[in-house]
């Protein structure tokens, strides 16, 4: 008797319990192709698995220790952070400025908006390939231009120089991604109510004050999303290191993802690559948590 009562209580007309069964296939796929491999990653990170031979040994924390000792880890984290900061600042500043300009009434606005967005449409491979010819020493676009205006173009060697290669590829990423950032800013700016701007003008604000005191606070959520998207893109950086510099010269453009790829597929050390992935995972989680806390706080303050 009591049992029956219980059963009755649990039947909901909106979402009966047995409907949970329908989540099982999706959940299963998710577990098999995502959760399980991720858990396995932790397991492999304490072995010396090479990807082929299944008779691997457990090596404890040796992989982690080597990574820190040989400096691969610090170098990659440093490069990735520099890259991410450049992308976030560059792409957001450029995107915001262009969005501001293209938000005022000018002739051919649609055309310019399209132009600014076109680079985002190309695949990274194409962009990387084209830009490696732009940066090519001696006879590339920039070098030829420098020669044309009377400067010494043969000295121009951005990707071949340890100090500049990372900035060189970051510039390409900015060129490709600022269009997307711009579109989001543009959408944000269009939500700003005209009457608020008018009120500001009546109160005697100049253009700069309007931007600083009215527009930016009103689009703060757009800024948040753009910054986070760019941070993610920066931390994931792989494409241009792979296509344009191959991590070089030396190890100056080895980013986190590129190093994982290199250890796993060139050095054939899946175990060590797993260890590296685990550490990257922790680093990225930490950065994300920090970003979320910081951004949420700021949004409320504004």
């Amino acid at each position, binding site marked *: 008797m009591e049992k029956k009562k219980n059963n009755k209580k649990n039947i909901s007309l909106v979402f009966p*319990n047995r409907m*949970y069964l329908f989540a099982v296939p999706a*959940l299963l796929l998710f*577990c098999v192709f995502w*959760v*399980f491999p991720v*858990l*396995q990653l932790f*397991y492999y990170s304490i072995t*010396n698995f*090479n*990807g*082929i*031979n*299944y*008779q*691997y040994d457990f090596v404890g924390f040796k992989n982690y220790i*080597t990574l820190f000792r*040989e400096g691969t880890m610090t170098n990659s984290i440093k490069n990735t952070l520099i890259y991410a900061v450049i992308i976030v600042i560059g792409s957001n500043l450029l995107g915001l400025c262009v969005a501001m300009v293209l938000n005022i009434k000018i002739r051919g606005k649609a055309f310019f908006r399209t132009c600014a967005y076109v680079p985002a449409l190309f695949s990274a491979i194409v962009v990387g390939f084209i830009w*490696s*010819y732009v*940066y*090519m*020493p*001696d*006879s590339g676009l920039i070098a030829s231009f420098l020669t044309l205006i009377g400067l010494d173009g*043969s000295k121009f*060697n*951005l*990707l*071949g*120089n*340890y100090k500049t290669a990372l900035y060189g590829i970051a510039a390409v990423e900015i060129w490709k991604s600022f269009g997307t950032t711009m579109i989001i800013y543009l959408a944000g700016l269009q939500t700003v109510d005209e009457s608020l701007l008018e009120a500001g003008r009546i109160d005697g604000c100049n253009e700069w004050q309007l931007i600083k005191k009215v527009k930016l606070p009103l689009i703060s959520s757009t800024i948040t999303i753009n910054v986070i998207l760019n941070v993610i893109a920066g931390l994931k950086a792989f494409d241009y290191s792979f296509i344009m*510099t*191959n*991590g*070089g*010269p*030396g*190890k100056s453009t080895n980013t986190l993802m590129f190093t994982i790829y*290199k250890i796993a*597929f*060139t*050095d*054939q*050390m899946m175990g060590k690559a797993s260890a590296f992935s685990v550490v990257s995972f922790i680093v990225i989680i930490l950065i994300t948590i920090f970003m979320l806390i910081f951004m949420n706080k700021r949004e409320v303050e504004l």
Partner: protein
Amino acid sequence: MKRKRIGALALTAVLVLSSLTGCSKANDAGSNSTSTSESQATSDSKEESAGEVTKDNITITMMYSGTAAENDFETEILPKLVKEEFPNITLEVTKLPDDQYYTALKTKLASGECPDMILVQPKYAGANSVIGLAKAGYLEPLTGLKAIELAGVAGRESFVYENDVYAVPSGVTMLGTYYNKNIFEENGLSVPTNWDEFLNVCKTLKDAGIQPIVMGDKDMYVMQFGLYQIAANQVYAKNASFDDQLRSGETKFTDEGTWDKVLEMYKSLYDNGYIQTSSLGLGAQQAIQKFVDGEAAMTFDGSFNAAAITAKGAVEFERGYFPLPGNDAGTDLYAAMAMGAGPAIYSGSKYIEECKAILEKWFDGESDIYKAYADSGRFVVTYGYGADKVNPLFQPFIDLYNDGKSFYWCNQGWPAGTETEMEALFSEAIGGQGTSVSDIVNGMQMKFQELYTE
């Protein structure tokens, strides 16, 4: 609420369990594969005396790396010719780009679904290196096949693991120096035969305002092209088993007069401006373009890039090819030549005898398959049909090879990754990062010890 929590707990438990069982399964698979390979090896010795090729209609699968060209040999010509020779055998060939090939191969090996024949690389080279796969018990020993005998000592050596040969050597590829014959003639230069002469050639060209050598070091692998040629003369000519001793610990990269000398010699080309200063910013293809356009007199590259290097450029000129003379005056010249990757048989295949029969036919030096293979021109064949029609560019190399004066490419003797460390450190040295030659050899030795686990 409570029920949800229980559900969540149960789910986590299932996850943890599934991960644990997954792990143990992986171990099982490993031990299984080895035990099958062992039983294969024992049953094989019995079969060899029988050596019967089935009369039933069967399908044999083969997986190769590379990109299929028009009228491709492996994917189009070979299956057709095999059908003519063995009417009951259908050969199915898949060809995948290198990276995909490695991934596919690993997955298929791990799941026990490997194709009957696969492409493997000599010694320790790459993810499909013959030693790596043979050690894991994935390959069928081919020692005793006629095709193996025909290939010669250097060929067999490249595919040996613990006294057995595991793949058929399929012709040689070489590293050398392409040069612009017209520029050489205009400056009254001839092909150098030792290191001093080579430096002289560079100096003469440089003084005449011509860039002697162009390299695309942005793609760091091209550094190997020059370095291995020098190493063949300075390291391996003096101690042919340098790499074997490296593994046993008798020799080290840091030994004086070995790799330090090689790196020093190669670096001097950069220090003197014989290789253009902007090399680290130039890609491999861009460097080839510069050579083809007549902007530099020489470039180090392999026979595998001959087509790109002999393509038409901005100016017409005649190309020549010589082994970089890394030898001291008065000593013999050695070339850096390697066996190309060759086909091997998966130890778990159901049709081992049939695969062997195909390989015997394919590499017998006279069958239609061999003729078509030699004519495809991707490898330089060293015996049988076509051996006398070698591209004249390669003739000086073949002569050295037949005299036994050639060594395999060094990276084939090292665990994969050692050479990338060398390249990274060498580019630091020429990129003005203050890395010295002794730093490079130390780094190489450290990386080698880390990667070599036995």
